[in-house]
């Protein structure tokens, strides 16, 4: 282009960096709160007094409390996770996306107004979460706890963000999309999909709703979402950020463009399938477990490709590790990404998962990724951005940034190694048998007491990390104070609109690369789903298509490469293809559950319906976040069955036993024991009251003071539940919604429902009064007053729920589902009868 032509089309633009500064500040503000809550929650696991009793000491007795409901572990653990994911990392993502997208598109963000709405809307949502979660308002699904009005707000704000982003792309003065933008596109599209599906709910009030999925289907959808929240909120946007900021900071070219391509497509396609690895060895159908495990293993290489492209881009800049804290943070961040994405596939192997699942190993794994990869990326990028956003030549204090680096690194290592020790030790202890090989050696609480030291080490690691980020905030603040906000300007060549995004749909979608990929994937899916013999044909076609694709690629590699170079010059077809790639995995896994997860398809056992009071108790269980520490899932593993379901009528959890659970409560971590078999039969002469593994009195005393019945327990005291009135009035509405969701409740009038709940509560309260119970915090509450208080309390409703857990009706033991498409496990039964017992099991496997 000649100079004359250039000057004719060039113009000077000012980037909209104010939004970037806002998001940066918000990220630090919420980040420190989120990390602080994390440290508080960590200490609660070592010292139950941290659930509120400590307030008595620091206020010299002004506040008298065994436990403050608002800060009990079950309520603030969701606050911690939501704050660090959506506020700390979320705001950082937005800051970096707004910064880099403008520069990669050589144009100002399309709408400053939308940016403002995005910023303030997002902060309002976070503030809403910070109020509602400690108040016990929750949907009871991990990382999806926010109540439905906030869900709608999140979707609206996300649409604002997406609209602003794509509008900016449409106005870009850069023909081709850089790899960072691919990742941003994948993030925006996929998070929208995941979030909306996993938050589909029917409200029962302004603050409460039931998800439309229940039981195994809810578990499946939840972990499709949960796993991919990690993938598309904590990974892909951060990779996009890495692809922009690492070459910028290192001033080196990206290691390999073709690695970027392979890495991107493999990651977005495969990641989605891996969700079921959160449900290994549970009652989730085996074929889904296998997909979860096998796709997680396949994910290892694509993840490491991201690490390679990051670390190898730093080649030639390693000397700056000594002088530049930014490079230090980025290098360690990418290294932790590599570690975590190796550990992830490892933990997804069903045999490894049998040990690691429900233990702190998983917690450690998550934190090596979030503290290491996300946290250090945040620090590195913010230290690089601050001098540019506030027009100073350099950071306020490089020494302080170095201090942050070492504090943070030591903190992560302490944290992660503590969790390895705690997780592996507890996992081993839980499955250790006595010398006879037939009974378990340790009680649950013994395994908890054994990991107290690592727990303290973890709190220390977390505290180090928090202090590091406080230094970071100070440093960024002082950097900002020492300069003044500047919006960068750039000279850009304005592209004519009719020369950008010109690819016709036919060209974009009808060509060899797309056709071969789509057909091969379609036949692969048919191979998994079709009945015997038809599946082999599908497999053969998959192989033939793959071979044909490779041959064609070898021959026409220039054309294929040319096609992709053209594709990334057209953001709409690119986005459509990304959406197809991410939608496939979820569809294959979730759609069959609509046909399979029905009462008439259940084998062996079917859950008994909750009575109104039990349902009220279940909502208390969810509101208090009990699922954060207790699972309700006995896996198909010997130690699980021996510990939680040794009787013949107990055993492992069947899929039908949680069919009517909206949402499911299988849990993901056992800080306390599993509760799936806690309930039991009706008490003789009673029509509603049950007694299970433990009596009502035991439960009462355990909730009032867990350490009285279980010495060494770290559970918060829940005495406040017995003076808080249960929400009986809302039950008719809730049961109405459950009926709409397919729970076969008989027709009951409003009065019948309420009376049933009150009678049930009274019966339990009377059984407690017979044992002369009293509330230590309310010593004057006695006799009939106490009886009435208890009968209508949340605590008694919760006891009713406890006594119902795991109650089922037996189904005709001969009934087995016919082999059906979309259900590979039934098809497998058709080709294979039960094999003889092999030799190895005849010897008892004794403790390790």
């Amino acid at each position, binding site marked *: 282009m000649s100079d004359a032509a250039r000057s004719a089309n060039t113009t000077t633009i000012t980037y909209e960096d104010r939004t970037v500064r806002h998001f940066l500040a918000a990220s630090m503000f919420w980040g420190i709160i989120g990390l602080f809550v994390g440290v508080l929650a960590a200490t609660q696991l070592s010292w139950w007094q941290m659930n509120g009793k400590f307030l008595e000491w620091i206020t010299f007795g002004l506040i008298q409390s065994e436990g403050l409901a608002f800060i009990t572990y079950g309520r603030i653990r969701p606050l911690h996770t939501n704050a660090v994911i959506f506020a700390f990392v979320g705001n950082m993502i937005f800051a970096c996306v707004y910064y880099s997208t403008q520069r990669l598109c050589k144009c100002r963000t399309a709408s400053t107004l939308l940016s403002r709405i995005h910023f303030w809307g997002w902060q309002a949502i976070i503030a809403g979460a910070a109020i509602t979660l400690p108040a016990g308002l929750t949907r009871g699904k991990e990382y999806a706890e926010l109540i439905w009005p906030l869900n709608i707000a999140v979707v609206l704000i996300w649409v604002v963000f997406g609209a602003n982003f794509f509008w900016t792309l449409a106005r870009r003065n850069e023909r081709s999309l850089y790899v960072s933008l691919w990742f941003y596109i994948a993030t925006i599209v996929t998070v929208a999909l995941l979030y909306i599906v996993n938050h589909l709910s029917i409200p029962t009030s302004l603050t409460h709703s039931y998800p439309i999925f229940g039981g195994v289907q809810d578990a499946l959808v939840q972990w499709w979402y949960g796993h991919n929240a990690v993938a598309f909120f904590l990974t892909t946007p951060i990779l996009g950020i890495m692809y922009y900021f690492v070459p910028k900071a290192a001033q080196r070219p990206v290691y390999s*463009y073709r690695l970027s391509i392979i890495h991107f497509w493999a990651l977005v396609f495969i990641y989605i399938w891996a969700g079921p690895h959160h449900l290994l060895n549970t009652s989730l159908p085996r074929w889904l477990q*296998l997909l979860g495990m096998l796709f997680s293993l396949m994910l290892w290489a694509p993840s490491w490709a991201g690490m*390679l492209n990051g670390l190898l881009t730093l080649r030639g800049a390693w000397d700056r590790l000594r002088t530049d804290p930014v490079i230090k943070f980025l290098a360690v961040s990418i290294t932790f990404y590599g570690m975590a994405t190796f550990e992830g596939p490892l933990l997804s192997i069903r045999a490894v998962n049998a040990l690691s699942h429900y233990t702190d190993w998983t917690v450690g794994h998550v934190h090596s990724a979030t503290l290491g990869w996300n946290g250090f990326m945040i620090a590195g990028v913010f230290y690089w951005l601050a001098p540019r956003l506030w027009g100073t030549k350099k950071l306020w204090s490089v020494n302080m940034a170095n201090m942050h680096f070492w504090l943070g690194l030591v903190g992560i290592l302490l944290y992660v190694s503590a969790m390895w020790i705690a997780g592996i030790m507890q996992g081993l202890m839980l499955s250790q048998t006595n010398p*006879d090989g037939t009974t378990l050696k340790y009680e649950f609480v013994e395994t908890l007491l054994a990991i107290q030291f690592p727990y303290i080490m973890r709190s220390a690691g977390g505290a180090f990390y928090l202090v590091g980020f406080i230094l970071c905030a100070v440093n960024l603040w002082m950097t900002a104070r020492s300069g003044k906000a500047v919006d960068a300007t750039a000279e850009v060549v304005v592209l004519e609109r009719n020369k950008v995004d010109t690819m016709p749909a036919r060209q974009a979608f009808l060509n060899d690369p797309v056709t071969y990929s789509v057909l091969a994937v379609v036949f692969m899916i048919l191979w998994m789903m079709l009945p015997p013999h038809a599946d082999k044909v599908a497999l053969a076609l998959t192989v033939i298509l793959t071979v044909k694709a490779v041959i064609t690629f070898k021959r026409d590699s220039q054309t294929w490469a040319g096609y992709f170079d053209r594709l990334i010059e057209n953001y709409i077809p690119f986005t459509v293809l990304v959406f197809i790639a991410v939608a496939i995995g979820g569809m294959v896994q979730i759609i069959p559950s609509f046909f399979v997860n029905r009462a008439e398809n259940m084998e062996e056992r079917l859950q008994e319906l909750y009575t109104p009071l039990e349902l009220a108790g279940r909502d208390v269980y969810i509101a208090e976040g009990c699922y954060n520490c207790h699972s309700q899932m006995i896996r198909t593993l010997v130690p699980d069955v021996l510990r939680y379901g040794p009787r013949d009528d107990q055993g492992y959890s069947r899929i039908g036993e949680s069919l009517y659970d909206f949402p499911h409560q299988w849990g993901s971590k056992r800080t306390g024991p599993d509760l799936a078999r806690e309930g039991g039969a009706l008490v003789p002469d009673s029509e509603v009251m049950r007694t299970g593994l433990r009596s009502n*009195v035991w439960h009462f005393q355990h909730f009032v003071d867990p350490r009285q019945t279980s010495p060494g327990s770290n559970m918060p005291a829940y005495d406040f539940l017995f003076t808080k009135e249960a929400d009986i009035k809302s039950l008719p509405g809730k049961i109405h919604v459950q009926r709409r969701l397919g729970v076969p409740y008989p027709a009951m009038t409003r009065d019948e429902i309420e009376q049933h709940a009150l009678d049930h509560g009274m019966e339990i309260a009377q059984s407690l009064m017979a044992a002369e119970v009293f509330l230590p915090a309310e010593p004057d509450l006695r006799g009939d007053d106490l009886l009435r208080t208890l009968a209508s309390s949340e605590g008694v409703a919760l006891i009713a729920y406890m006594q119902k857990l795991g109650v089922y009706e037996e189904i005709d033991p001969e009934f087995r589902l016919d082999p059906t498409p979309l259900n*590979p496990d039934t098809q497998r039964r058709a080709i294979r009868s039960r094999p003889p017992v092999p030799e190895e099991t005849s010897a008892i496997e004794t403790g390790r």
Partner: protein
Amino acid sequence: MSQEEPKITRAAYASKKGEIALREHEYDGIQEYDQLLPNWWLFIFFAFTFFFFAYWIIYYQFGLTRTDVERLEDRLAVINEAKAAALEELLANLDDDVLVTQLATDPEQLAVGHQVYTTHCLACHGADLHARISIGDGQFVNLPGRSLMDGEWEYGDTPMDIFRIINDGSPPGSSGFNGALMEAFGQRLPPTDIAAVTAYILRENAEQFDVPEISGP
């Protein structure tokens, strides 16, 4: 790269020449090399893709491995058999007399029994076996279990009756003590532990069961 040399745009060609291709395009000053993928990386990627197909074929096409439930049930059957055998073996040599005169006078057995009691029984029957705990001012909190010190034995008062109630739990159809049912500890403890904890309870009730003094060395 200097201007005179021909531009190398393809990585394969470039690596043959021992050079690294640098793509022409530049985004906000960021350039990209176009290097070949490392072979070890390709190996991992293809190996696990192959593993996916192979595993699925072995499991679903050939049905070669057992399902989880089959595996679990086979092992549980073995364990239950061994458990029953151990119980039978113990019962062959256990009666009221053995419990009272041999086990309840053996300090080692009593220590085991005390340990088992502390771990499994204390929560419902109390540290002093009275099924209550003192909270000062002469006030007590009642625990869910029965007192084991009141000389009353709801389900039979011979030492073997006590062994059985611990081993098998509350009899079927029993309404329990104020709704509280005894768990079948034979499910989770070896029979020898149950004998030991029975001995411990007998020792605590030495008078009622005529347990001889421990003849220490």
